[in-house]
């Protein structure tokens, strides 16, 4: 009898020990949280998730946060930095328990996050912010069905990079204003033997392909989603864009290796002097001038992306908003922290690594001084930011589009068929919603 009790007791002790180990922290946190709700002056602990690469550096974000906590002694912020690829899984795994209060996300996530209940609606909170002073493209990326789900923070978009000396040798003094002009320049550059394949793209089967396709389809007057919110992939502008891609590949104006390239490959091709034009994010400007890696150094030029016909220019949003998870126990403090990080003062102070979301700061001499050439182009380019489809089913839509566009680029389907296939799938996806 005693033995049996001993056995039961030992299992119970182990089980209790295990439970207390796994729940110990949570329990303590819960008690602390209850207290906070009662009395806001008691300490609050916020957990925030950021990205390691691109934009503000880890040091920048840590410094911003230290400044914030100094001004708010009752708030403690724990920072976590992960690679881009880890952001989404981490958010999804922890949002319901409020593991992170503030999260940095990609600009293509707000619609699906809002629909899935991952992040909080901040429309009311945003009423105190002068959103008129924020670039429209950046604001649009956090809207879904008329409500706002985040605050734009990291600002980025694609630009046209060109090799100044190649253009000069080919007899051009300014970068192209339209895609037709760019195509002609590429033909001349190729004919003169300045470079074998004048244009480099990131057309690998990845999100990068949809970024480039968004740029082209918007410039040719298309758009993946129509004004009625329904898929419009077979629209004329989209067809023109895909035809342009296929044609330039066939003619050897676009680098045939583009179909296996990502953004870094575009950079490497460009800095090796193997491209006259390349589409890429802001980071390419500094990277292409790095004397260690770059053969072309001062020859790198940055310009706004060409347009076509009545459309002056179109680029794709690569920004990243800050959001509050739906499980956050401290949404008020989280919002306060977000407002601080995205405030004009902070964005101005740290403008060297990431340009601000605020239009008015682009005339500020301190901001201009950080990178005059880029600021000058960005100021105009940001007005032409287009977003990739702001629909909750974007993940699946993008996967399908990548496959179909690549099929057209690789000659496995003609461009019309490819777009029709994508449209069929997109309509089915939209219908499920």
């Amino acid at each position, binding site marked *: 009898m005693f*033995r049996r009790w001993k056995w039961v007791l030992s299992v119970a002790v182990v089980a209790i020990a295990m439970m207390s180990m796994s729940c110990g922290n949570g329990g303590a946190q819960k008690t602390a949280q209850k207290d906070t709700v009662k009395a806001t002056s008691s300490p609050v602990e916020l957990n925030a998730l950021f990205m390691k690469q691109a934009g503000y550096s880890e040091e920048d974000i840590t410094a911003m946060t230290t400044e914030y906590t100094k001004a708010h002694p009752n708030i403690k912020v724990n920072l976590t930095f992960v690679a881009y690829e880890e952001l989404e899984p981490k958010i*999804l795994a922890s949002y319901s328990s409020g593991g992170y209060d503030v999260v940095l996300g990609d600009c293509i996530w707000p619609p699906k996050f809002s629909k899935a209940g991952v992040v909080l609606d901040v429309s009311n909170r945003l009423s105190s912010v002068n959103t008129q002073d924020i670039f429209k493209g950046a604001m649009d990326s956090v809207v879904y069905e008329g409500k706002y789900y985040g605050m734009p923070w990291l600002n980025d978009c694609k630009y046209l990079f060109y090799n100044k000396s190649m253009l000069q040798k080919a007899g051009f003094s300014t970068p192209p204003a339209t895609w037709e002009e760019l195509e002609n320049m590429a033909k001349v550059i190729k004919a003169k033997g300045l470079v074998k394949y004048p244009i480099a793209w990131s057309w690998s089967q990845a999100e990068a392909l949809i970024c480039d396709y968004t740029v082209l389809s918007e410039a040719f007057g298309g758009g993946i989603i129509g004004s009625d919110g329904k898929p419009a992939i077979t629209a004329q502008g989209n067809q023109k864009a895909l035809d342009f891609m296929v044609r330039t590949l066939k003619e050897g104006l676009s680098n*045939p290796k583009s179909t296996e390239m990502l953004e870094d490959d575009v950079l490497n091709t460009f800095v090796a002097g193997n491209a006259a034009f390349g589409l890429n994010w802001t980071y390419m400007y500094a990277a292409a001038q790095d004397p260690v890696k770059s053969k072309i150094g001062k020859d790198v030029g940055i310009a706004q992306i060409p347009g076509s016909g009545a459309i002056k220019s179109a680029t794709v949003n690569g920004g990243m908003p800050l959001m509050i998870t739906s499980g956050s126990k401290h949404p008020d403090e989280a919002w306060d922290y977000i407002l601080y990080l995205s405030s004009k003062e902070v964005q101005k102070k740290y403008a060297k690594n990431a340009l601000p979301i605020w239009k008015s700061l682009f005339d500020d001499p301190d901001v201009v001084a950080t990178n005059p050439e880029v600021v000058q182009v960005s100021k105009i380019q940001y007005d032409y930011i287009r977003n990739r489809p702001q629909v909750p089913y974007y993940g699946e839509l993008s996967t399908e589009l990548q496959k179909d566009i690549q099929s057209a680029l690789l000659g*496995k389907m003609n461009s019309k068929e490819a777009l029709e296939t994508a449209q069929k799938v997109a309509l089915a996806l939209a219908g499920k919603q």
Partner: protein
Amino acid sequence: MQLRNSEGRFALAIASPALLIVCFVVLFPLLTTFVYSFMNIELISKNRGNFVGLSNYVQVLGSSNFWLALERTLYFTILSTALETVLGLFIALLLNEKFWGVGFLRSIVIIPWAIPTIVNGSLWKWIYNGEYGIMNAIFLKLGLINEYRSWLSDPFAAMNLVVVADVWKMTPLAVIFFLAALQSVNITTYEAATVDGAGPIRRFFSLTIPYMTPTILVVLVMRTVEKFKAFDIFYMITRGGPADGTKVLIYETYLRAFTNLQYSIASTYAYLFVIIIMALTAIYLKVLKKSEENNA
């Protein structure tokens, strides 16, 4: 009897922490995934949380995506396992000979295997790079190509190149297995066969192969299951592209879960995957048992 009982209980008591952990981190997710495959857990769906019976299975099995992905997975599995086994056997035979430097060769042969898959993927991605990859440089020097070309742009070629990258990394494992088996071969049997006039080819097919069969089967079982699960090498080199040419089952599952937030469809994929692996394992176990019986 009394003693055995109390020993059993004591064993259970000291194993219980480990059992609890296994329950939490293995059994619970396994069961949840199973339940999810009968529910709608698509995060962006308005009917989230409803039981949907077998409709996820019907949807997945009725979609061409699943069958195409299965076809690619099978192609990758069969080709790479076959190559690894054949190459592994020949390298093991070579390393089983006595020649100067064999000890050094035996130790360095495991290096590719020691490299993490993710690093291996990255390495081969650079080798295949169309713009500055070493494969282009070598082929150009050898006169096999006239100019640098893109290797990963063709769906079929890309799949075969992933096979090469994987075979390069995993062949050493087969070599080690085969070498260990060869080391315990009874030399006198070979000597007797040589005296009887059997040439090297005859000796290989009549002595080595039958002797090695159990080891070959073990390698085949292990590698097939592992290949079926290969994810990281695809993630690193091709990400399922170009034009879905390398989108294997597990990559499709990953996209469904983590890009599309379709947890229920991803769970269904995962369980279909489990069923296939279980079937494969069962077949192999049967074959193994048979070969052991024959040997005995």
